[in-house]
């Protein structure tokens, strides 16, 4: 699971400049791109590239604790996997971090391989999350291309209603329903009704009309 090229980036937030620099150098030595920040504010203000990424976060930071910053990010819906590093950690601290979804909790000075392994895992997690998000947004784009009537028909079809029932409910002919249904299937690029139902699930429209 070696880290892969320019498709990813590692963010480092640590108030200690030599540590930041050393981490950047270590990541560079294994071909990983890194972006470092001295404070959390710098990190939040920066324009972050939209690629697979993870955050190496010091627990003790000026102004705010790394653990508090973790929950702030979660509230702001910034879903970046976090690896904690600390000069002096204890068990309650690490338990709290891991419960809140951290990938790893490392105590300085750490073994380089442990950190690199954790970064690899974190990037893969983020990559998977991004791919998932990308699929959803594609699906959303397809759904947006449907006419309002086709969206209605799709919702009712995926809710399990027969053409006849849909026709009665929308007060149109059964043939019209069939045409809308065919168009929706085509536009959504669904090869079967089952696939359409799954798409409706991801988009969250089936439940709304059920």
């Amino acid at each position, binding site marked *: 699971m070696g880290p892969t090229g320019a498709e990813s980036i590692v963010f480092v937030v640590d108030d200690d400049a030599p540590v930041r620099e050393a981490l950047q150098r270590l990541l560079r*030595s294994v071909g990983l791109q890194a972006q470092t920040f001295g404070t959390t504010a710098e990190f939040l203000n920066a324009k972050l590239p939209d690629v697979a990424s993870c955050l190496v976060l010091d627990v003790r930071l000026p102004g705010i604790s790394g653990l508090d910053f973790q929950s702030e990010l979660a509230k702001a819906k910034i879903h970046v996997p976090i690896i904690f590093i600390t000069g002096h950690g204890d068990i309650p601290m690490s338990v709290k971090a891991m419960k809140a979804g951290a990938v790893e909790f490392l105590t300085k000075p750490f073994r*380089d391989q442990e950190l690199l392994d954790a970064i690899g895992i974190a990037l893969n997690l983020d990559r998977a999350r991004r791919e998932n998000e990308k699929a959803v947004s594609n699906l959303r784009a397809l759904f947006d291309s449907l006419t309002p009537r086709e969206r209605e028909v799709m919702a009712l079809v995926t809710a399990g209603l027969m053409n006849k029932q849909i026709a009665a409910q929308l007060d149109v002919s059964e043939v019209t329903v069939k045409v809308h249904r065919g168009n929706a299937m085509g536009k959504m690029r669904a090869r079967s009704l089952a696939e359409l139902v799954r798409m409706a699930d991801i988009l969250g429209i089936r439940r709304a009309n059920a």
Partner: protein
Amino acid sequence: MFKNLRTSTKLLLLCGTFVISIAVTTAALVAEKQIAIAFAQKELVGSRYLATVRDLYPAISIQRDDLSLAASGRAPDEILKRLAAAEADAASHLQTAELERALAQTLRKLWFDKTVQNTDQLGLDALSSVQKLASRIGDDSNLTLDPDLDTYYLQNIVIGRLPGLVSQLGEMQTLLRAANTSGSLSSEQGARLVFLDSLLRSTADGVKSDLAAAYRGNADGNLRRNVDAALAATIASLEPILGTVKAAHLGGEITRLDSASLDERAFSSAVGSIIRGWGIAQTDLNRLLQQRISDLVGKLRLSLALLGGFLGLSILLAIMTHRHIVTSLQHLEGVVAKVRESKTSNVASDRDTKDEFSSLTVAFNDMLAELAAAREREIADQARTAQQTLLTTMGQMAASIAHELNQPLAAIATNGNASLRFLAHTTPDLDEVREALKCIVSDGHRASQLIGTIRSMFKKDGQKRAPVDITQLIQEALGLMQVELQNQRVSLQSELEPQPIQVLGDRVQLQQVVINLITNAIDAMRSVTEHARVLRVRSETNESDAVVVTVEDSGAGIDPKSTDRIFDTFYTTKSHGMGIGLAISRSIVEAHGGRISASPGDPHGAVFQVVLPTCKLGES
């Protein structure tokens, strides 16, 4: 009020009350006995008076029998004088003056008035007067009131019966003599004779029954021995006379008697016998009364002696109790004072009596023991708390230092690893490696500076330095560690310089050094089982006026090669610990211008030595 009095005053009150009640009882007893004695003495006066009266009878009889007065050996004048004297003696007790005067007049007439013809009648009058006097004496002298059986019945004989007998005999004799003279009796006289006869019998019977009752009341039987024979003879002497009258009476109505029926000799013999019996009975009555008086006096003396004895005993007991209580209280007071003075609770009282003071002493000793135990617990708790506080503070400080040091260490390790990876590339990136090595060097310096900062942190406190007594400081540190030493079963050998050794420094920091050394020593001996765990602490001054504190343990010991490294930060041989204690200790010692060193112990263990420059008092 009462509770404020001293114990001795209370005892005095108790004793006084007791003495007063004894005195009142004694007074009542004496008064009662004196009443009884006075009663008996009055009886004795009466009885003596009666003896004088008794002597009158023979005189009266002799006169009437017309015999020579001189033959009786007692002149009538003398008899009258004695009677008057007896009356005068008894005058304070008895009211007999009038009767005595009347009797004396009758007797004078009888004896000296030659004009009187009818001497028989006068004799009878005299006898009657004597009998009245006798019964008055009996009444006034308590004799007839006597409650004691023996004397009561005896006095009844002496006062009533015997004078009665004499009077009756006299009357009978007079009647018979008159009849002899005229040769005939009037019927009245005859009847009188018969009456006198039965009166004599009944009086004689009365004497017998009184005697029997008197004997019953006389426990020792002396009365019977003394009077029985005489009174039996008296009664027997009456028999011939009674027999005469009986014989005359048997002949029918007594109107005349022959001359033979008047036996003057029998009469005088009977009277003599009565007087004799009377005398003996009287003597015994006196004896009994005297005996009763001496009995009473004896009992009174015995009671007084007993009361006095008990009084003395109780006063003695009161004095002993007083001395005992006061001594015990003083003893306890002394013990309490000793406890107060010595400020220790190990002063035990050692009284071995079995009274309340003994139980108080036991309770007091228990209290002292419990106080001592509580104090020990308190000291142990304080020591534990102090130690825990110290350890917590040191732990926090160590954690803080660890965090600071871990930053450059992490950077160094990371840079090193990055360099290794760059070197491992197919075309090693030497520029990167160079940069990384520069960073490593810089971080190394940074770590060193950090240590310097920590040291200077201790140095800064040097401004607050003051003279510290090292010996006292070691003793306090040992006190703080005492509980831990006991828990780990470490025996302590301390050889401390008795003189105060003054060092100019920070008391808390120096104490931390000593405690750190002791803690290390205890930790080093934790795994020791094959030999004794001994901690030896010494303090002494060397030739260059520096104090040398040596802490020696019998623990696992140290590698001779690492004796210098053990003072380095983060160097530790313990399974737990940060490896910072000795580093800090060295910082502190050096900041005080001293030095610390370690060497292996002999045969095992480690020896740590701290040398600190001393300061003379007043030099600071």
